[in-house]
């Protein structure tokens, strides 16, 4: 069903989809971000509070091969990118760095490509 050009209805856009991804990423990182950075970036690599073997090849491989682990990794990594893409787009737009089209490709485009890369790498890791 197509809407005529002179329709009084507002034009439908896919902007709410990006807004949803932004909100989900922002909420996820607000709830768990500090703990995740502390765990994967500081505690496990240095063995502070947790055994270092939690970060070993075998343990991480087992986590990435678990279907639930795969889903967690994909959702977390992709949403972090989509959240930043929306913020960076709005900020660069406010800074008048470029046109809307250029900035959308630069931010959403990169987030899209990195989401695909994450999914492909998770498939390459195996099951």
């Amino acid at each position, binding site marked *: 069903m197509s809407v005529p050009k002179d329709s009084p209805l507002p034009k439908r856009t896919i902007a709410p989809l990006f807004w949803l991804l932004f909100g989900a*990423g*922002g*909420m996820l*990182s*607000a*709830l*768990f*971000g*500090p*703990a*995740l*950075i*502390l*765990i*994967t*970036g*500081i*505690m*496990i*690599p*240095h063995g502070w*509070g*947790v*055994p270092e073997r*939690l*970060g070993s*090849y075998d343990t*991480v*491989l087992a986590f*990435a091969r678990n279907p639930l682990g795969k889903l967690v*990794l994909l959702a*977390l*990594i992709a949403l*972090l*990118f989509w*959240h*930043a*893409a929306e*913020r*960076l787009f*709005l*900020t660069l737009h*406010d*800074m*008048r760095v470029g046109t809307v089209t250029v900035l959308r490709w630069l931010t959403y485009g990169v987030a899209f490509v*990195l989401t695909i*890369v*994450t999914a492909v*790498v*998770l498939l*390459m*890791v195996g099951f």
Partner: protein
Amino acid sequence: MSERRPYLRPQPRTWWAHPPYRAYTIRELCGVALAVYGAILLAGLVCLARGPAAFESYRAFLASPLSLALHLLLLAAALWHMVTWFRILPKTMPKLVWHGKLVPQALMTQAATLLAVGCSVALLALVVVVGAWS
């Protein structure tokens, strides 16, 4: 002739680096810092897919002082993101009415921030328990 020509106040190009806009810029960049963390995780996955040798060099990087400094910076950014995210939250959602009274925005911010701290602490505790038990 009758074209509208409103006065536009001149704005320096570096407005975002000066108060009162600086706080806005820092807040937005803290959100972007979280994408850097996402990229670190993705790099780990790529190394994992390439095999044990590549993953060991990734682990060696994570154990380096440079990585520690970077992650401390990212941790600060994530904490500031958490604080500012819940300051914005009440302004972006519909008004909340409880027993016929409007819930104050400050109360919503406090409750949500407390919930977030609880989530992070619970995740930390879970990992410590799993680590000790495994």
